[in-house]
């Protein structure tokens, strides 16, 4: 049982790492893409195995109710994105935006990123977590700069600087947590292991924990794209290859938020510590309102949805900040739904920008008429992300808003205002994109696969109607721990 789990865990880490190394040396980009898909599929299967067979926790790695669903989600989206990217990247090669050498580099970094994210999620050690997230940051910097255009380089540079700063702050917070744990648990590795920290968190020095949380929130919050730490996010999404935008929005933001939540669990396990809620509520609301306003003036379709990611990170952070079983459940659900939906949207956006040869919103019109599948897919994605039924985001927004209003009516008002604002501004942009008289530009043939997008939307639709029992049980369990 646990042997199988151990094997699965090893696969999750070793397959991407190995595939990444292999891909560096693989010259043929077609085989590279196939290997990429295959490795991602293997990781996904391993992640599914982990559901049934959880390995014993050790000082470095661990699988529990919290990370299991994120691991599955992570590898699922990585897999679908690799399928998407296989066809997407080929088109980039045809149009001459990339050379085969860069493609080799791209596939290698893709697997490396998958490794880093799996490591971050599996880590049972706050140091290891930090290392993994740092690694993921560095890899994504390279991926964002892939196109080598001035804009791409500049976006990568911005991402790199802000990301490094975030990482530095997070490290300081990590050290502070260790310092808080060390008097209670003694020196050495156990004082950095999640499960032990969690068990002893009640005896830690609350003041030190508070300070640590400030640094961790800002540090990992930068990676999660919370305003005012978000500046790297829109450009990195807009200038990198679209599969990377999908992975960034769908997965990396979740991983960063996961780290914040892990530390929030410590905070809530310590009764004397400052409740982290107000901080998270404040940052969440700020992100939501700010992103809502910024959506209105966007001219670039990928930047538009990048701001939408900021908005949703804001909602999720807000939900966890509110705390309580309902809001925490909603936050966890929203994390899942957002990553599925947003990556689906980016799949659609990727196709659209390839078909239309532009990312400028003002030059794209009437997609539902010219490309019905893409247009309606985008519409479905936007409706889903806006929290409308029959999609899953509706459920989480339902829980967040209603539970908040019952407890803190004054907090719910800005929340509702922000949701409405963001919806109005997002819809304003998308409406013109999807409807109206299509322009007569010759439509390039779409070769990319639409199945990843449809799969994600299907899953989100399913979740809106019915949630599987084990997932609910995990969420409930984690929601209690999150306080």
């Amino acid at each position, binding site marked *: 049982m646990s042997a199988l789990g151990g094997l699965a865990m090893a696969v999750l880490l070793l397959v991407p790492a190995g595939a990444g190394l292999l891909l560096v040396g693989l010259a043929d980009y077609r085989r590279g893409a196939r290997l990429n898909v295959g490795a991602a599929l293997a990781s996904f299967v391993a992640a599914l195995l982990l559901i049934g067979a959880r390995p014993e926790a050790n000082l470095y790695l661990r699988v529990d109710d919290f990370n299991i669903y994120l691991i599955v989600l992570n590898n699922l989206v990585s897999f679908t994105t690799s399928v998407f990217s296989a066809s997407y990247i080929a088109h980039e090669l045809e149009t001459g935006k990339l050379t085969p050498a860069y493609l080799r580099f791209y596939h290698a970094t893709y697997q490396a990123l998958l490794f880093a994210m799996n490591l971050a999620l599996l880590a049972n050690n706050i140091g290891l977590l930090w290392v993994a997230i740092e690694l993921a940051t560095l890899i994504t910097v390279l991926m964002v700069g892939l196109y080598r255009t001035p804009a791409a380089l500049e976006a990568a540079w911005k991402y790199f600087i802000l990301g490094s700063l975030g990482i530095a702050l997070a490290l300081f917070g990590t050290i502070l947590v260790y310092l808080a744990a060390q008097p209670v648990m003694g020196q050495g590795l156990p004082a950095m292991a999640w499960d032990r920290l969690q068990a002893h968190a009640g005896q830690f020095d609350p003041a030190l924990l508070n300070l640590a949380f400030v640094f961790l929130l800002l540090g990992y919050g930068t990676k999660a794209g919370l305003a005012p730490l978000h500046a790297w996010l829109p450009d990195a999404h807009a200038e990198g290859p679209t599969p990377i935008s999908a992975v960034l929005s769908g997965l990396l933001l979740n991983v960063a938020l996961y780290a914040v939540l892990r530390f929030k669990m410590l905070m809530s396990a310590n009764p004397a510590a400052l409740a982290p809620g107000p901080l998270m509520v404040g940052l969440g609301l700020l992100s939501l309102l700010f992103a809502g*306003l910024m959506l209105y003036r966007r001219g670039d379709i990928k930047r538009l949805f990048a701001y939408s990611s900021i908005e949703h990170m804001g909602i999720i952070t807000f939900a966890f900040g509110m705390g309580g079983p309902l809001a925490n459940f909603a936050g966890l659900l929203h994390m899942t739904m957002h990553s599925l939906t947003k990556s689906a949207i980016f799949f659609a956006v990727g196709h659209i920008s390839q078909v239309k040869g532009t990312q400028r919103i003002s030059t794209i019109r009437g997609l539902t008429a010219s490309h019905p599948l893409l247009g309606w897919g985008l519409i479905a994605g936007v409706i889903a992300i806006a929290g409308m039924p029959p999609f899953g985001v509706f459920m989480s927004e339902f829980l967040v*808003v209603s539970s908040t209003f019952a407890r803190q009516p004054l907090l719910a008002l800005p929340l509702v205002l922000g949701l409405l604002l963001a919806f109005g501004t997002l819809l304003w942009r998308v409406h013109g994109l999807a409807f109206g008289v299509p322009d007569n530009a010759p439509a390039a043939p779409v070769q990319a696969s639409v199945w990843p997008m449809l799969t994600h939307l299907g899953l989100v639709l399913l979740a809106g*109607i019915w949630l599987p029992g084990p997932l609910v049980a995990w969420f409930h369990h984690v929601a209690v721990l999150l306080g």
Partner: protein
Amino acid sequence: MLLTLLLVLLLVLLAAGGYGTVAPARPQGSRYLYSVSLAVCTVLLLLALAHLLSGREPLHLSLPLGLPWLGLHLRLDALSAFFLVVVNLGGAVASLFGLGYGAHEREPERVLPFYPAFLAGMNLVLLADDAFAFLFAWEFMSISSWALVMAHHREPANLRAGYLYLVMACFGTLALLLAFGLLAGVDGGYGFAAMRASQTPPALAALVLVLALLGAGSKAGLVPLHVWLPLAHPAAPSHVSALMSGVMTKVAVYGFIRIVFDLLGGESAVWWWGGLVLAAGGVTAVLGVLYALMQHDLKRLLAYHTVENIGIIFIGLGLALAFQANLMYFNAALALTAALFHVLNHSLFKSLLFLGAGAVLTATGERDMERLGGLIHRMPHTALAFLIGSAAISALPPLNGFVSEWMTFQAILNSPELPQWLLKFLVPAVGALLALSAALAAACFVKAFGITFLGRPRSPAAADAGETDRFSLSAMFVLAGLCLLAGVLPGLVVDGLGPVVGLLNGGARLTDQYHQPWLTLVPVGPLKSSYNGLLVMLFMAVSGVAAALLIHRFASSAVRRGPAWDCGFPDASPATQYTAGSFAQPIRRVFGSLVFQARERVTMPPPGDLRPARLEVELHDPVWERAYAPIAAAVIAVSTRANVLQYLTIRRYLSLVFGALVVLLLGMALWR
């Protein structure tokens, strides 16, 4: 068992929606789809009617869907059964109309998938018995109808309409969501049963009322939340317009009734709740009809009229709340019956009128009344049906619109017993508003029918129009017949509403009407007031026919055709007729300057100059200009300023992080 059957029928509708994605490619696909919708709606209608009339206990059903720890709860009680009747009656008739009308659709792939989904969404709202299912269905209904509004997306005006619609729908849903949040409480008791059982503190209950008014009101079209309605309803294909105006607004009314009368419970009502709803209803009624009078677009005129009628319904509901707050349950029953009766009536005649407008649209391609005219010659049957609808909505006896307004008046007349001073002033004022809106509605429909169907054609399209198809005609005549039936046999409808009113009113309901002599409607008591539509119709028919027979028999029956009196100016062109604009001009002068800041400018060329004189009319929409335009301007201004943040240097972004860190550290330092 019954509920399972209903649910299966809804699934059939959803499946039909799935078929709708491939139906446009098949030769008879559209026919099949509308036939299925028609059949399902008819069965649903009959089942709901049977349940309503049998007076059985509410049925429950729960399924392991939706919120995992809550499940999906469905309930069929008298209230939902009544609204199911309304919805599926409209749905069946619209589907019947669609059998013929659908053939004219240019882009059926944008209508067929969403049409059955829209019907299913509305039905599900009525069956939902927990907040999640309710809002789920509510939003589903909004989205599917939005997709239908966007069916003719190539016109820029429709783009705007759809956008505004969805944003307002989102606003409404959020308001309802907040209301349910309050009702559910901190522990999240989202089931309606739990909400009924729990006592909401008075302050929170008042908040729930306001939120319900905002949420349901924005969907129903209460002023000032109505702005989307006259844009969105006409933008959809006509049978969908009929559904949106005639039926979906009723679902919104249902939402309000469910939350306020059922979940909050009338016993927790405070008198000013009634006052608030009354005032909103009164203002809505008058403003709605005034807006309608200023319109020249036939479908938009009808949509504004929906706003007016929603106002009338809310007047009834407000009265009922005020009575309930003062424990005057009998009067509350009267007001509630009036409101629910009007719900039914409006769904009948508004659907009829929109279908008529749709028939005109397909026959002429025109919605602008200034380019219509004389259609009574080319489309006699449509004209007759539209005339019946116009008379009914103008509250003319012996048709149904009059009965519900009459009952609303009766409820108002019973209100001097209300002890609160504010209500004493408010109720007669609202009565005057109601009377005013009824009179203006008649004026409006003289205009709508007169300019569209009477006179001489104002454009070649109107001159060449032909009668519409049999399906469309039969749909319209079914509704016209029902308008007449509900008008002459109101007692039966009132009896049918009895269980609904009892459910919402602590058991108190009007006395049974069916045993009254001659099927007279005696809501309060024989000494107070009574009305018999049947006899009025008989008397009118007898005297009219008798007069005709007598005159034709004993006097003359000769007829000669000749040109109209030209006042010495031969060959008057159709342009010399009164137009919609000129018809409304006196009323615009009387009310428009007050409400719309109407200005007329006449540019008269000097003598000898051959240029035509010009008359320019400038109207301002007070609601849009005072409420919506400033909000939009503020959002644009703020986002333009915030947009600077997209173009900062990296150094400044770092400063932001730095600033956030310093602020938080300072907070930590000072907090202790």
